[in-house]
């Protein structure tokens, strides 16, 4: 067993542990933090596959930004774990049966020799090979169409988030200084012309 294999097993073991804790941790914040750990180890696994760009991007995007926002939401919400767990034991038998079935099916399929380690021999890259450069080249040439589509999906997500969250509250007594400054005397005051009246008529 060489060093690379040992590193792989360390990362893999930590990843599985973290993933298990994500679903078993009682406190949602702890669960989210374990998810962070899981992402971290997944990034480590990618590093051992010479995919440093993907690894670092995973850490940067998911750990550095997405999970932070996720934690915001979880921390703000007052999640009642007891209520979430209601009916857990009642539904357990069915869920367990289905789960075991799925696992058995997958085991059946995945145990075929097609998924053995022989089928996908890792490609050895030269010393000047840069994962980042290759990915960039592919993304902007062969995969430019899906790449642009993905960006449009993100645009739609932004528009959807704006339309679903932005609204003017009616109960806020908000003054617009621009309107206040731009007011003219004719908006406020109207001079009426009236004939003079004599007293006593």
């Amino acid at each position, binding site marked *: 067993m060489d060093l690379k294999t040992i590193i792989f097993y360390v990362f893999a073991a930590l990843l599985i542990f973290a993933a298990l804790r994500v679903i078993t941790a009682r*406190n949602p*914040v*702890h669960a989210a*933090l374990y998810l*962070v750990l899981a992402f971290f180890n997944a990034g480590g696994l990618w590093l051992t596959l010479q995919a*440093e*760009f993907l690894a*670092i*991007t995973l*850490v*940067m995007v998911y*750990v*550095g*930004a997405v999970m*932070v*926002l996720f*934690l*915001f939401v979880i*921390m703000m919400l007052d999640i009642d774990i007891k209520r979430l767990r209601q009916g857990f034991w009642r539904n357990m038998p069915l869920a367990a049966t289905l789960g075991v079935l799925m696992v058995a099916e997958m085991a059946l399929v995945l145990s075929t020799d097609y998924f053995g380690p022989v089928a996908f021999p890792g490609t050895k890259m030269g010393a000047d090979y*840069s*994962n*980042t450069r290759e990915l960039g080249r592919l993304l902007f040439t062969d995969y430019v169409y899906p790449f642009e589509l993905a960006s449009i999906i993100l645009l739609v997500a932004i528009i959807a988030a704006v339309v679903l969250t932005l609204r003017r509250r009616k109960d806020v007594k908000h003054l617009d200084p621009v309107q206040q400054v731009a007011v003219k005397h004719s908006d406020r005051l109207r001079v009426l012309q009236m004939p003079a009246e004599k007293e006593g008529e």
Partner: protein
Amino acid sequence: MEASVLHFFEWLWGPYWSTLWAWFKPVWPLIWVIMKIVAILVPLLLGVAYMTYAERKILGFMHVRIGPNRVGPLGLLQPIADGLKLFFKEVILPTKADPALYFMAPALAMAPAVAVWAVVPFFDGVVLANLDAGVLFLLAVSSLGVYGVIIAGWASNSKYPFLGSIRSAAQMVSYEVAMGLALVCVLMVSNSLNLTDIVHAQGRGIFADWGVGALSWNWLPLWPVFLVYLISGVAETNRAPFDVVEGESEIVAGHMVEYSGMAFAMFFLAEYANMILVAAMVTVFFLGGWLSPVGFLPDGLPWMLAKMSLMLFLFLWLRATFPRYRYDQIMRLGWKVFVPVCLIWIPVVGVWMMSPFNIWE
């Protein structure tokens, strides 16, 4: 460098050297890495300590005060005294805090601030890990610093820390976007993600050939982006005028309210280490790293340190000069000013590079 160090040891131990070397040879690479880490960390921590001293002295000068002058000559031992005081203070754990996370938070704040230094080049080849994707590593690891803040706020189980941590984390995440986009321009013109290569790329150009290398550095052609990066760097470290995390009148010390003693000191260390890091990054990305500004002087580590010191002085100057921003103004500046500026400058640079006026050939 490795050979001369070994040579030094050989001279130091004299006749015992061959026996010792037989023992140490298998683990020597590890020892060598640890020695390099120590060589980076010790000056860094000293720098952090004297940064606090410099801050107080410079602020004092700008406020027409004297600043610390009691401990040691000119108050030079003040940081040591402060450190000892914090070290011996009791670390308090609030009753309802989450103990594990509460103590993990300062470490999580400190670790990334230190780990990033692995890829910072001080001179040609003087870098702990010369990664090909150094810029990405830098962005990734520095984005982890936010966890220290957010976990500290939550684990304290107290209102002010929580509000403070949310403020701080939102601010850091927002300004990371602007910083990342600003770096895209730098990457485009230097055609590399390696920090050493980025510095080298700035040593080439018409002005460098004329002997005024300072005008070939990135700060001039990428001026708007340079400003964005600089200001975002200040905001990223939660320094004045963007220091809304702390505020005596509103949320006291933000996420650090409940911390005392060494735990508090760790946050403090992390903040100053991050400041020095931002100074180093601005130097590497925009101010030519260790390159000499004029042709007749040699390149070298002193230039790097001088440029970093200049940047750090600028940060202190900002703090002494500007009033604080309001929180919504900070967010608006980040998202509605800096991000668009970067997004506009990226195509500008792209067109520039494709045009006959390309200066980065």
